[in-house]
């Protein structure tokens, strides 16, 4: 069985976007997600001697982040006290058949769609993790952050034609990876 090694100096470049997307959909707050990721990295460093190498670095960091997210919710629940569910029946707009109006719409797929989109996002990042590091960084900046061609070329010191070749290669590799892992 292959054993994996930890390299904390590369954690931010390699995993921060993945961890961030994982956290943001669960806490829905950019600042909280940032704090949780920061805590994850520090907890990872402090417990790096416990890493046995059976899981990948990313899986190991995600398991730490999961615990941090659970701790976060425990903490806010203990601050708020007992969770309360309030249903406002006296809403003037809901006069009439209020009982029917409270029933969930069986055809509303918003939650499922959101979940599927999040999983798709993680699958895309996993695939990007498998391609050339520089190509992945350029692809993220150009396609996900929608940066100008000029800005990307300046940042990576490449020509526009070089940029489009890299984007083309990254897209081809990404499509092949998604074809294998997503569909």
């Amino acid at each position: 069985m292959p054993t994996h090694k930890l390299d904390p100096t590369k954690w931010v470049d390699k995993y921060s976007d993945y961890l961030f997307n994982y956290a943001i959909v669960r806490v829905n707050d950019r600042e909280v997600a940032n704090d949780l990721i920061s805590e994850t990295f520090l907890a990872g460093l402090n417990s790096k001697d416990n890493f046995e190498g059976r899981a990948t670095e990313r899986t190991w960091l995600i398991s730490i982040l999961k615990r941090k997210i659970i701790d976060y919710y425990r903490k806010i629940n203990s601050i708020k006290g007992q969770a309360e569910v309030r249903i406002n029946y006296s809403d003037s707009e809901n006069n009439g058949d209020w009982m029917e109006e409270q029933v969930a719409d069986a055809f509303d797929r918003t939650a499922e769609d959101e979940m599927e989109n999040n999983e798709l996002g993680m699958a895309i990042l996993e695939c990007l993790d498998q391609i050339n590091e520089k190509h992945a960084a350029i692809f993220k900046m150009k396609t996900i952050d929608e940066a100008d061609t000029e800005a990307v070329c300046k940042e990576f010191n490449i020509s526009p034609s070089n940029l489009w070749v890299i984007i083309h290669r990254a897209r081809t590799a990404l499509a092949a990876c998604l074809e294998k892992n997503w569909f």
Partner: protein
Amino acid sequence: MLMHLLLCKPCRKYTSKNTKLTHLIKKSKLKTCSEKEKKAWKNSIEKEMAKGES
């Protein structure tokens, strides 16, 4: 371009895949961290590592 796609099967296939990929990327609503955030994390990791070494 459209005429070319009508006649060229490989390009048609490539365009279809490319369009599908664009759609998937948009649908995923992926977010990336800013350089400022990444720098702050890198600094805190470096600090913690230096602490561990000393």
